[in-house]
């Protein structure tokens, strides 16, 4: 199957994009220039360290930027300007927050498990950072090329539950414990739809390697419609499921149950102060960035430009733009929705998203098997894949039977 898909796509060569090749290679050339004087094993080590450093620095500044953007966007949505007095128009706000966090007293509760209490943020951060390794940021910019990159990504991402549970358990606080329980229930529930959601992509691309998946999304139909997976019916359904599950996996509203402010104070973070809290915060944003990056890679064509004429823009910029767009979506959703309850949350996962993802799996198989249908058969193909997921959307769900509907009211 992978062969049949790759035949459809134009072969990719580095020299094909012409002038932009230099720009494309610019980060790599800079790195090579720095390490040019070193002998081979050292050079490899230096190259890797530079890559790791660059990824961490870039995402750390993205994290800083993101906190600011989130506060600004939330502000704008709520008819107010947001932070604008620290630095020029508020640009230094994250810096101020960072300095304050760094210089804040670090409190470990007397009854807490000191070791776990310390390890939890470190583990979470480490696990979030290593997921960055396999995301292709540009045409030539993949920190680690793995054959099973997608698998690696989700394995590392799934382990973050452990860290959250550690935090909740070690704090020895009733709210934290409840949060830990919620986190486990929630993250395990959403691991499944998350995994099932991208299986269609793997079926379409025929590979577990992220580079190959991005490469499979290159090219344009009739020279202007990009062949991204999100624009195919199973890919679109997969994208929606993936994004819902990603919201839940990264503990974002409306699934921010583990740290639900109005119920559990700050959930598993209740007992964390100062820099450890900042680490948690950072790790959560890293997790969100990684999942968004993966969404971009799997569904939104990775670093591919949306139109042929726009190819002169370096691919990593396209990736950054798409990443920011997805992150903005996260913020937008946070600004709008109330939170679900834990039972509704798990019900949504098991009774709606998982069946939908399974149906989508079948649809994807049908879709990729029928890629050569043409003429009127094309209509049948589109009809088939569009109807299948909607059968799940329309299916009556026992949990929702008790009349969740708009109501009319009478007057005395």
């Amino acid at each position, binding site marked *: 199957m992978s062969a049949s898909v790759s035949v459809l796509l134009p072969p990719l060569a580095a020299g094909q994009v012409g002038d932009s090749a230099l720009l494309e290679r610019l980060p790599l050339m800079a790195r090579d220039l720095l390490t040019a004087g070193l002998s081979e094993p050292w050079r490899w080590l230096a190259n890797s360290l530079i890559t790791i450093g660059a990824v961490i620095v870039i995402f750390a500044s993205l994290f800083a930027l993101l906190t600011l953007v989130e506060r600004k966007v939330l502000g704008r949505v709520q008819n107010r300007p947001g932070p604008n007095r620290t630095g020029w128009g*508020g640009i230094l706000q994250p810096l101020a927050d960072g300095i304050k966090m760094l210089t804040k007293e670090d*409190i470990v509760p007397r009854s807490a498990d000191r070791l776990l209490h310390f390890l939890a943020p470190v583990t979470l951060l480490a696990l979030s950072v290593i997921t960055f390794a396999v995301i292709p940021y540009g045409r030539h910019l993949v920190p680690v090329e793995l054959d099973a990159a997608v698998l690696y990504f989700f394995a590392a991402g799934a382990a973050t539950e452990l860290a959250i549970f550690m935090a909740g358990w070690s704090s020895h606080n009733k709210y934290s414990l409840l949060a830990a329980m919620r986190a486990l229930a929630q993250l395990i529930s959403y691991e499944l739809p998350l995994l099932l959601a991208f299986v269609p992509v793997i079926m379409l691309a025929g590979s577990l390697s992220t580079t190959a998946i991005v490469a499979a999304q290159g090219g344009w139909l009739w020279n202007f419609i990009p062949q991204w997976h999100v624009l195919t019916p199973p890919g679109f359904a997969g994208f929606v499921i993936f994004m819902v599950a990603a919201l839940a996996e990264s503990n974002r509203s409306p699934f921010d149950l583990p740290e639900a402010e109005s119920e559990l104070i700050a959930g598993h973070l209740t007992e964390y102060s100062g820099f450890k809290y900042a680490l948690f915060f950072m790790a959560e944003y890293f997790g969100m960035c990684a999942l968004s990056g993966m969404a971009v890679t799997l569904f939104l064509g990775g670093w591919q430009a949306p139109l042929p004429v726009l190819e002169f823009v370096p691919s990593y910029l396209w990736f950054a733009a798409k990443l920011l767009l997805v992150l903005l979506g996260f913020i937008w959703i946070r600004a709008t929705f109330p939170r679900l309850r834990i039972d509704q949350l798990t019900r949504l996962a098991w009774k709606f998203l998982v069946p939908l993802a399974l149906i989508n799996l079948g649809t994807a198989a049908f879709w990729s098997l029928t890629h050569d249908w043409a003429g009127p058969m094309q209509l049948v193909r589109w009809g088939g894949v569009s109807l299948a997921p909607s059968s799940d959307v329309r299916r009556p769900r026992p949990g929702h039977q008790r009349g969740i509907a708009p109501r009319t009211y009478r007057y005395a």
Partner: protein
Amino acid sequence: MTMSDATRPAINAQTSAPLSGPTDADRDELRRHGILLTSIQELANWGRSNSVWPLQFGLACCAIEMIAASMARFDIARFGSEVFRPSPRQADLLIVSGTVTKKMAPQVIRLWNQMPEPKYCIAMGACAISGGPFKQGYNVLKGIDRFIPVDVYIPGCPPRPEALLNGLIELQKNIRGRHIAGPAPVEADSPTAPGEYPVPAFGERDLEPTSNPKLWQPPVIVRPDKP
């Protein structure tokens, strides 16, 4: 009114710690010449003053004005302070917004103890400062500064949200003038739990003790007899 100033102890000693560095005027002068004078202390103070996260803690009427100050019309976010943290572990600023009753006072002190240094306290409104209109009540604490140190007092009943913002600006100024090592250690009453303020117990008629004598020594009032 005659008041014997000699008997008045230094209350809030930590708020008047002078900055032993260059003055604002010096700095402005240097800045004009293109030199950005800074130090670790200033950087830290700058960061702290621009990122004061209040504890999401409302007591009474003033809490509504506190919420209003964080809402669109007044937008405390402009000062970087809209991050109302519900957990005291992550908060920098305790806004005592409203009447502290004797039943509530131990809880407020506990919250204050749970906050990490450096921490600041704003007494917002008449009730938090002195018991205010309700000070004649048997269950009303006559000022939160009997138990915890207060950095800025905002009178008013309730103060307008602008007045709260004004208080926050005052606090920011205050923070910029501090030493990095934190406030002068006037607190630290118990050697076993440094930095913790004793929490009063509920007595049969009143809180026991009724104030923290290390922190609070009211001046003596001497009035001439009424004619």
